[in-house]
């Protein structure tokens, strides 16, 4: 009896399978499922652009409509990856233009995108609808103009924290009058002025506009007129919130805010003056997401604002909130799921000392849905971590940044080993963890023993020896991304756990004790890994024992990449070729 389901039935069933993780599992069941799944997958996620070739992706998923790509390693955010390392969008755009011209959405993160890329997109994808660039660089406002003028069905154009060469604000005027499909526009990272009249015209002919994020340059006055044109907004990123307005203008702006009945998310608020905070009160009860991380607002004003945000789920704020402010959040924002507290000063010694571990403890006590935390703080204690773990076993993401490297528990002077032990032991579903402060190998033994669901781990200035890495690689079963800087260990643990690396997306290690010889060995042992050595100060001769500055190891089906700059070396699988800067076929 043939038990196979007809492919039409399979297709129908698979159309209900949304998550790519599920689709990946589905495609492993058998050949016919693989075939049917690949022919029906519309949204493709490639989380390391060097793990697979563009051609292979296009070939496997002919019905692809949405492509998400990530380029540089995460630590590139903190300037640890030298410029020119790679992550170029061009090869992907070129390949898709030829093989997947029906592509509608492109989401890129940490990639180098040039004006040429943007022009190619504009010229090649007739049904193009969404361009979302996060932490990308390499393009200018000219490229944006190309997108604006050509993409007739554009729905989303979002530039999140990109570095854009600003050649003037005219690019907005390139959106044709016939373009009425805009749903989301985010140009918050642009420096220069945008012509208000162009913006107003665009907004007024976009009845579906739900999300608008302005850049700093857009004045309060301009904000008022834009809000009146788009009272249907669900997400708003204001411009600068600091011009001096007369009484009439203030009351008009206040009125405009009260008309925003659908508003759920608020951000921007650069330079916000305390006297304008009350303007926001009317939207507070409806907010689920509030980003105050660029607003230099002092604690009392923050308390006034946040005590009105009873439905808040996501809060990003600076340490100006202080412990007292977080207590207010704890009592008012019972729906809180995600909290991020950023430093207001650029350096360790400018940290606001009125924000301590107590703030996070208060929130963990009172907010039952809290799952994700990012917390910059001058110092911490084991006791606080233990309390937090006990309060909130449902935490999924804990990123603690104790600003001073090697800082111990400030009450007991002990390492923070026990505190993090409580976290990994108590929070059984923990998926992402960043540790800091003084930590010995013991901390990592605990993490290896208990962190079974941990997928991403970030470590800096910690540990004593190779054991640290060994505990992690041998213990953390779900480990997918590991990034380490300035930790004192080297080769043994890496080589002993080499097989583990093929089950992970990537491993980054910088300023650790890994030797060149170990890199060579590792590369030769593991055929499906790219072992990249990043060294901006290479020695003339490289003895095996010499330490390498940075290594980036990732699994790949594509082999060594061909676009490496001179400071990146890949270790060849063929020992005769050895190390090369240009991968040879």
């Amino acid at each position, binding site marked *: 009896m043939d038990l196979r389901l007809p492919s039409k039935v399979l297709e129908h069933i698979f159309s209900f399978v949304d998550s790519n993780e599920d689709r990946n599992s589905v495609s492993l069941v058998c050949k016919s499922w693989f075939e049917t799944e690949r022919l029906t997958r519309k949204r493709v996620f490639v989380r390391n652009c060097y793990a697979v070739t563009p051609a292979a992706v296009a070939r496997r998923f002919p019905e692809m409509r949405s492509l998400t790509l990530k380029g540089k390693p995460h*630590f590139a*955010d*903190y*300037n*640890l990856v030298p410029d020119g390392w790679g992550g170029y969008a061009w090869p992907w755009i070129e390949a898709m233009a030829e093989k997947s011209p029906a592509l509608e959405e492109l989401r890129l993160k940490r990639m180098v995108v040039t004006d040429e890329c943007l022009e190619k997109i504009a010229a090649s994808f007739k049904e193009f609808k969404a361009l979302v660039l996060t*932490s990308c660089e390499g393009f200018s406002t000219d490229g944006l103009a190309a997108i604006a003028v050509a993409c007739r069905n554009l729905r989303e154009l979002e530039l999140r*924290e990109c*570095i854009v060469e600003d050649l003037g604000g005219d690019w907005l005027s390139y959106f044709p009058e016939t373009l009425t499909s805009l749903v989301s526009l985010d140009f918050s*990272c642009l420096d220069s002025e945008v012509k208000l009249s162009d913006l107003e015209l665009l907004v007024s002919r976009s009845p579906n506009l739900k999300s608008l994020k302005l850049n700093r340059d857009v004045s309060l006055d301009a904000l008022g007129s834009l809000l009146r044109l788009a009272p249907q907004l669900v997400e708003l990123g204001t411009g600068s919130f600091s011009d001096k307005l007369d009484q009439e203008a203030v009351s008009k702006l206040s009125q405009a805010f009260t008309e925003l009945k659908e508003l759920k998310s608020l951000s921007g608020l*650069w*330079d916000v003056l305390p006297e304008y905070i009350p303007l926001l009160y009317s939207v507070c009860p409806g907010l689920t997401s509030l980003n105050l*991380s*660029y607003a*230099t607002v002092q604690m009392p004003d923050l308390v006034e604002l946040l005590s009105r945000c009873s439905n808040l789920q996501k809060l990003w704020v600076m340490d100006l909130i202080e412990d007292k402010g977080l207590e207010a959040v704890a009592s008012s924002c019972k729906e809180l799921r995600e909290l991020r507290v*950023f*430093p*207001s*000063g*650029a*350096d*360790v*010694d*400018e940290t*606001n*000392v009125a924000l301590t571990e107590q703030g996070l403890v208060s929130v963990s006590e009172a907010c039952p849905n809290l799952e994700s935390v990012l917390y*910059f703080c*001058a110092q911490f204690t084991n006791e606080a971590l233990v309390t937090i773990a006990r309060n909130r076993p449902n935490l999924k993401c804990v990123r603690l*940044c104790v*600003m*001073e*490297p*090697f*800082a*111990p528990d*400030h009450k007991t*002077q*002990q*390492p923070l080993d026990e505190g993090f032990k409580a976290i990994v032991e108590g929070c059984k579903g923990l998926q992402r963890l960043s540790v800091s402060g*003084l930590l*010995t190998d013991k901390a990592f033994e605990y993490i290896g023993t208990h962190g079974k669901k941990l997928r991403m781990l*970030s470590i*800096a200035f910690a540990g*004593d*020896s*190779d054991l640290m890495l060994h505990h992690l690689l041998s213990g953390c079963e779900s480990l997918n991304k590991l990034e380490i*800087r*300035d930790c*004192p*260990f*080297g080769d043994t643990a890496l080589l002993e756990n080499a097989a583990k690396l093929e089950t992970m997306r990537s491993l980054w290690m910088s*300023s650790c*004790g890994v030797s060149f010889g170990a890199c060579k060995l590792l590369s030769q042992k593991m055929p499906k890994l790219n072992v990249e050595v990043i060294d901006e100060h290479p020695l003339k001769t490289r003895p095996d024992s010499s330490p390498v500055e940075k290594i980036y190891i990732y699994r790949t089906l594509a082999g060594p990449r061909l676009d490496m700059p001179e400071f990146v070396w890949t270790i060849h699988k063929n020992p005769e070729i050895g190390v090369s800067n240009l991968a040879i076929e």
Partner: protein
Amino acid sequence: MENVGVCDEFVNLKATELRLGLPGTEDEKQKVSCGKSNKRALPETEKDIESTGKTETASPPKAQIVGWPPVRSYRKNSIQTKKNEAEGQGMYVKVSMDGAPYLRKIDLTMYKQYPELMKSLENMFKFSVGEYFEREGYKGSDFVPTYEDKDGDWMLVGDVPWEMFVSSCKRLRIMKGSEAKGLGCGV
């Protein structure tokens, strides 16, 4: 474990030692780590550090560890821009006190005159400043409030009219003990 014990001790010393600036400004002696031969010296710094790590003098050039704290450049730049712009609004200055492990920041525009400022500082750091005399400076206490002015000179707080002080004060330092004597505390 014995090694860890030694390390702890060393760490305790390190943790309680008073110093400004980040690790990496330590002098040679302290760079030798606690017996773990594969523990490297602290990471590359952006600037050359010549400080001896002593706290008595005005803060040494800060050690900048690349990529630390882990804040995106985009955000760092925003803060920087804000700092530059904020010079006019609210006069936040750092206050250090000899012997205290960390600094505070106060907004000078919150005060109208010297006595208010002194009271606030006394509360903040739990000390008392003695009485101010025009000629002899502060008498009756080991603590002397000083400030760094626009020219980079260290001055006694209280000598100039309040408004002039607010506009020229870059940072405050509460000196203690023998160092304070030089500034005319007249004890």
